């Protein structure tokens, strides 16, 4: 009897995991299409460029937030903290399986965080690199 109840739950869970994985891939594909449109020489995303973006200190953004690591910590596997003290789940997909599955959320935070850190929106290659780096962690 109980297994009858568990089965649909497992299927539902697998379906959402699957849906998120699908959404993540669609997101990356979207960034890739945009990147190609802007630069015909685009040759795919790079985890090391993504890591670079994650770790570099920029001068163009707001003074309190020179780098992504200010809030996300230098380790993608560690819990970060907002400037107001609220915990932020780790950015690496292996540590937070829900990451990068909701395109609206991803767009919102790239817009905000890139403006805070770099003083401008991130480009499609930058976003793709970043997610590629984080999904590989």
């Amino acid at each position, binding site marked *: 009897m109980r297994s009858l109840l568990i089965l649909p739950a497992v299927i539902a869970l697998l379906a959402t995991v699957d849906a998120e994985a699908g959404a993540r891939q669609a997101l990356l594909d979207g960034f890739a299409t945009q990147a190609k449109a802007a630069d015909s020489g685009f040759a795919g995303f790079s985890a090391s460029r993504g890591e670079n973006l994650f770790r570099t200190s920029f001068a163009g953004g*707001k*003074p*309190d*937030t020179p780098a992504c690591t200010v809030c996300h910590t230098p380790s993608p596997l560690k819990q970060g*903290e*907002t*400037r*107001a*003290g*609220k915990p932020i789940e780790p950015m690496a997909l292996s540590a937070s399986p829900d990451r990068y599955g909701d395109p609206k959320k991803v767009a*919102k935070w790239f*817009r*905000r*965080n890139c*403006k*805070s850190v770099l003083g401008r929106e991130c480009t499609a290659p930058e976003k793709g690199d970043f997610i590629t780096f984080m999904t590989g962690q």
Partner: protein
Amino acid sequence: MPTPRSSPVPSLAVWDLPTRLYHWLQAVLVAAALAIGFLAPEWWMGVHVWLGYGVAGLIVFRLIWGVFGSQFSLFASFIHPPRQIWNHIRGLIEGRPPHAMGHNPLGALMVFAMIAVMAGIGVSGLLALGGVENQGPLAGFLGFSAGDIARKAHSILAMALLAMIGLHVLGVIVDSWLGRESLVRAMIIGRKRVPAGALLLNPRPARRRAATLAAICAGTAILIASSLAGMVPASGLIAMPRQAAYQEECGDCHEVYHPSLLPRASWSATMAGLENHFGEDASLAPETAQAITAYLDNYASEAWDTEAANRLRAVDGTAPGQISATPFWKRKHRQIEKSVFETKPLRGRSNCGACHRDAGSGRFDDQMIAIPAR
């Protein structure tokens, strides 16, 4: 009828047991309430209020006992005509005040004055509790501004009572010294020496049954009245639906602030400046921002009559969107700022819920404050 002179130092039962119990209980409760009120941190208010209820109950008892008690407890027995009061003062100046079996005329005046002031403290305290704190039986009947006036009266009367207690103790010391008989001892054992040649009428015994009946009636009336009054919802708070967008979008980086903590103008300035929100970009999709702005406009501090809403309404002109920059906030948190906030610079000030367990309701009750251990 002269009293029989059997013992060498004849004494008379002056203060009956209920009066003595009343006196010392009153002394203890009032001292504790005054000490907590003046010295203890805010979150002791619950204890202070219960002490206040205790004192009020004692005063109700004393009023009943002043009518049905034994001879020297009766109010009528220590209402002295002005001429007698004057005689007493003259005698006091000469160092030979006339002997009094019960309260002497000046002491009696002080007893009436203290009972009146304590009653005033109780009433103003109840009004302040209802109006300012939205607590107690009067929470549904009084607004903040009326409660705030009562709060001021409450503390002025408390200071007056402190002075009167000082005078009362001084009077007891002087009278004990000049009369060669300890009044403190008399209030403990209940008996006082009868001076030679004193003529005493038969002291009237207490009417215990009438007193008990009166106490039961008064107690029941108070209980019924206060529980009926307590059913009226607090007048300072309004019903506020939760808006999902506000909870989600404004709770990503910090706790979700209760809309009553800032006035409309502050919220609209905050919502118009999300691109540069306390040193960060917190921008939103226009339609989401619009919905949240409308919500905050509806439930901003102007819509509430709580203590927090009233006090925090006066914002700092240079930082209108910052609750922790308002003059009231700074004054209230000055003492803790150094020790707690500086050790955790990133999680301190703006994390109201870390110390105010009821921050989510906008009440900010004194009893709900608990500074977390570090």
